[in-house]
């Protein structure tokens, strides 16, 4: 069985003989503990093909090694992948911890929480800035992917909304609580500017690291493009995950 995975860290389309859980473990920790790090990827319909991506070539190379071991990864593309994979071909989202524990998240029918207050978005692909905004996830998506008459417009995007806690309503004095963000005085200042000025969004960190703590996810991870709109992968609460996916929860919260 050969799989196709759309990795967000880095953005790439990968063919693999590993199941999603095995792939997640391998992608995070490596075969000989040679690579490390959080991984986020989608399972892609194995029947998906695109003229600009040599998927057949990659699949042809995705065969067992001489010793019978399955092929772990064959990169089909590492550039502008997200915009070429339609939402209809995208399946389950997998969140992998640094130590290789994998959690599968299904696409949800429920709407993202667009409640009052400020929002913090970490864009995962195609670029990775950290952004604060007055807009909820859907308006934020429309701001970036909605039209072609703005220099900001991009064909597709994946982003995650991160918790702001008290800072969502009181940027200057709200308690940081358990939010592990760096340079919080700058974050507070950006939030205050978005709250009080006309701008809808402001970049907090233009070169933000690709990784983030899963426990800071507010709603879930969003993926969308100009033609098909926005899809949401809503994450259960950490309390629920503690009950249902205890091992993943433990690794995700250290």
């Amino acid at each position: 069985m050969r799989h196709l995975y759309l990795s967000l860290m880095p953005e790439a389309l990968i063919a693999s003989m590993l199941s999603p859980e095995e792939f997640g473990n391998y992608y995070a920790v490596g075969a000989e503990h040679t690579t490390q790090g959080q991984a986020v990827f989608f399972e892609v319909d194995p029947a998906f093909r695109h003229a600009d991506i040599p998927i057949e070539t990659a699949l042809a190379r995705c065969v067992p090694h001489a010793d019978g071991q399955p092929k772990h990864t064959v990169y089909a593309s590492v550039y502008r992948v997200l915009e070429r994979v339609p939402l209809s071909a995208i399946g389950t989202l997998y969140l992998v911890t640094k130590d290789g524990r994998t959690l599968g998240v299904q696409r949800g029918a429920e709407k993202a929480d667009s409640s009052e207050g400020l929002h913090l978005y970490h864009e995962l692909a195609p670029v990775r800035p950290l952004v604060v905004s007055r807009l909820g996830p859907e308006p934020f998506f429309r701001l970036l992917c909605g039209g072609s008459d703005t220099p900001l417009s991009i064909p597709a995007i994946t982003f995650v909304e991160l918790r702001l806690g008290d800072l969502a309503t009181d940027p200057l004095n709200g308690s940081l609580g358990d939010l592990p963000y760096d340079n919080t005085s700058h974050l507070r200042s950006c939030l205050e500017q978005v709250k009080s000025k006309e701008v809808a969004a402001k970049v907090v960190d233009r070169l933000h690291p690709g990784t983030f703590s899963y426990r800071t996810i507010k709603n879930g991870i969003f993926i969308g493009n100009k033609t098909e709109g926005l899809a949401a992968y809503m994450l259960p609460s950490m309390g629920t995950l503690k009950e249902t996916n205890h091992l993943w929860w433990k690794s995700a919260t250290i």
Partner: protein
Amino acid sequence: MNSDLWLYIGIGCGLGSIAAALVYYRWVFRQEPGTEKAVQIASWIKDGASTYLRMLYRALIAVAVVLVVVLGVIFSGDPERPLHGVYTAAAFGFGALCSALAGWLGMSIAVKANVRTATACGRSLGQGFNVAFKAGAVMGLAMVGVAVFGMSLLYLIFHDAEIVLGFSFGASSLALLAKAGGGIYTKTADIAADLTGKVELGIPEDDPRNPAVIADNVGDNVGDVAGMGADIFDSYVAATVASMLLGTSFAAAGSIGMQYAILPLILCIVGIVSALIGLQFVKVGPDGKPGKALNFGTVFSCVVFCVLATILFVVVNALAGETVFNYGALIATISGLVISVIIGFTTDYFTNDEYRPVRNVAEISASGTGLTIITGFSYGLISIAPALIGIVIATLTSYFSAQAFGLPGIYGVGIAAVGMLSLTGIVVSNDAYGPIVDNAKGIAEMSGMSHEVVDTADVLDSAGNTAKAITKGFSISAAALTVLAMYAAYSEVIVKYSGGSFLMNLQDPIVLSGIFLGCIVPPLFSALTMLAVTRNAFTMIEEIRRQFKAKPGILAGTELPDYSRCVGIASSGALRALVFPALLAVVLPLMVGFILGPTALGGFLGGAIFTGVVFALLMSNAGGLWDNAKKYIEAGNCGGPGSEAHKAAVVGDTVGDPFKDTAGPSLNTLITVMSLVSSLFAPLIAQYHIFG
């Protein structure tokens, strides 16, 4: 009242305490051990602990045999007491044996109780607490029982406190090896497991995929059960023997009666009875707060001891129709006891996250590691003040109250140390409870018990951490007062054997040289033990990385790590690293004494005691503070796990680990051993020395 009768009561009470320990042992052993997987994990911990203890005891036997021969030969030269050397050597061997027995009993039940506590946590918090605390009580009762039995028996046979001093030296020698070795072991495993597991790979604590996880759990037992137990056993015996020596010495000079030579033993008997009563009242209340239950037990036992000791003095004096036991000794005892409890709780202030110091370090950590270290270290320095002021108050109160009632003031100081340590039974019970619940939490995690069980064990574990911090403050303060009494005993022995007076003049270069040489030892000892930790941790980290590389299935959870290799590295590394520091403790005082003379040795002991106590308090409290600042952040404060504050706090905790669990607490034993060596060899040093 016939003094031999008290010694028979001491023997009976000691045996009674051991019997009570065995009853608790049996009760704990009968509890449900739990699932096959949990039992399997517990057996790995048990095997690791047994392997280490076997290696430690083998090393101890070798050291003991050498020292028995040396003591036997050296002390047989007195024609008036031809068998004194043989008796001292036998007492030394007996002391080492008793200390080993108490440590073995405590370890033996701790490695059985951990899995039973985890299983009981599945039923309720109260039941989990009960199993862990009763297992801790096995250690507490066995220790005081063995000590009182041994000292009473030896004094009954020989009626010579100097022979009992050999018993104390035997106990201390083992304690030094057990405490320093256990401290090196536990922090080697802890640091290696954390740096590769948590920091490098993001593996949670107590995850069975970490090759060092079993060594880490074994370390809790060898460091905090056997090590800390041996340390307090050593102080307990040394304080009693120092006061017995002082009592004997003053009685021989005619300033007090012979009953004061055995009064310390009588107070130990009262302490055992108080602990046995107090243990019955340690129960988790409906509010589900185990820390409150542990503290209540300590305070309640303290009150019971004060009441029983007062009744004893009043009744004995009334029955005799005269003052058999001077009330000055009672005031000194109670002052020592009360101050020890106060010092314990001031330690809690500096290391508990409910108070300002820990929270301040946590908050300031958001600005970087440098500030974490500076702030924590500064609080550690401040924490020395209340403890030393407490020791000063205890010293002055006991000295002048004894003097006001017509007793030698320094005897009052010795008795205050005995008062401080009279709660040893309950304090050690609380202390041994800590590693048992820590292990229970680890076993619950590793064996895949439900998260409710893990959460319950976590609540018990938090209380254990606080109890551990209080115990350290208690043991350091007790050791300080003990060595002051031992110091006085040393002076008395020197006076007795040199036939002159013993005065130390700070203008005398010989004395000053002794002081400076003494000041060197605690920092040198600390550095050697901490370097041993870093060296062994480095080796273990390499082994962990090797295993992950050689067995890719470990992280995937499809292959088991080789736990025994990390256990082996920790065990052999700890014992190898002990040789030089242990030699320092025995050889340096002898070199100073025989070369520079008794006054230089007096200065040497003074320098070592004062810097030792300061270093011990600083390192124990700063380490505990950094540890709890990290835990406070992990509880969801100051940015929580993964934040900049957390990263800085993790570094602080790593620095603090060998501070609080290796070097800091071992210094108690170091200064006790050096004081004992000096007192034991004082008769020879008084006669044979080059200078002074």
